[in-house]
């Protein structure tokens, strides 16, 4: 079968669907990225990088397989590849959150809790932080998280356990 010509309506419709699905994933990707980088601004840079990578390599995604897992995997890899540049999160956590969620009753408290948690995550080794970002933050199953991180499920389980102990110590201490 010959390739469809560029701009073919059917192809454009499918591409629109994929782009729409990615827009739907943005909040989850942002949350994952902020958990990894510790900063909203760095997190958003990571998400932008991830989105651009994903679309430029869209042929590597198999239609029918999970788009979210695939994009989380790209984000994870990009974070590892470029993490020397994610420095801001170490000094200033969540400096630029402008969303209405911070307004009103208890906003300051919520903001502080947010900063505490984001900072506590930064104290974890990267491997544990990735596991936590997928399981505790995003709520994926151990199996899904292990697949994304490309590690055995037993490794994932022990990383989660160690991270839970460490986070508890940090946040209680």
């Amino acid at each position: 079968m010959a390739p469809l010509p560029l701009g073919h309506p059917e192809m454009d419709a499918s591409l629109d669907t994929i782009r729409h699905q990615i827009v739907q994933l943005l909040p989850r990707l942002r949350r994952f990225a902020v958990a990894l980088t510790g900063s909203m601004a760095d997190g958003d840079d990571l998400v932008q990088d991830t989105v651009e990578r994903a679309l430029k390599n869209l042929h590597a995604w198999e239609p029918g397989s999970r788009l979210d897992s695939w994009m989380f995997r790209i984000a994870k890899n990009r974070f590892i590849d470029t993490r020397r540049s994610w420095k801001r999160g170490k000094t200033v956590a969540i400096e630029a959150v402008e969303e209405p969620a911070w307004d009103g009753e208890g906003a300051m408290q919520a903001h502080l809790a947010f900063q505490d948690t984001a900072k506590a995550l930064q104290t974890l080794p990267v491997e544990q932080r990735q596991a936590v970002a997928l399981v505790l933050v995003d709520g994926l199953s151990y199996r899904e998280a292990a697949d994304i991180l490309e590690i055995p499920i037993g490794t994932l389980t022990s990383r989660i356990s160690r991270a839970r102990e460490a986070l508890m110590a940090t946040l209680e201490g």
Partner: protein
Amino acid sequence: MDREILNKFVDGQLPPQEMARIAALLETQPDMKDYVAKQEKLSASLRFEAVMQAPPPSRLVEAVHKTPVSWRWRLFAGRRGFGLPWLLPAGTALLVGLVLGITMRPAGDLALSHGEMLARGALAQALDTRLASAGYDGEGPRIGISFRDRDGSACRTFASGHQAGLACHRSGDWVVTTLVTQASESGGAYRMAGSQMPETVRRAVEVSIQGQAFDAETEARARANGWTGK
């Protein structure tokens, strides 16, 4: 009790019966109950609800809409027969339209079983035992590259006579997922070294490979493990 088990309980990762057993146990063990309560609170504090509810910044939405997709996606999208792959589970699309021709030659090297084409005889033996890294001695089927596909199966390209293809190791058998028969002008076998792999086989590899092709060490290890596992 093992903390790992309790953590799995908090994360809802135990089988239903085990979840129920631990839930009942907690009622008699205040220490454990306290631990679980604290871990549950920790999970709740990590949801970043504010980020989930905030509209994403326009630069991200713009990146989604404006970043051009790869030309290779457009190529494959057309070749896969548009619309169809969306209805099929992962991996099935691969099997559609890639099996171009089947001739059972040499006899005994291929068998059909439950709708799948399986490697037998010299082909199966070559897939099981030969290492591409060891070089080709000019006899029998030649093995090309080996890799793991998206389902985690070990897969290997091969060439034998006028045929070339891709076989993946599933449930102890080599399932031939792609087979191309083509008479070469010289009458010789395909040379499977890299770029000379038939286009159809190369495509099949491209759409199914997970990560990189095996290097010599990974190939040897995979053979030692009987082509199973990770």
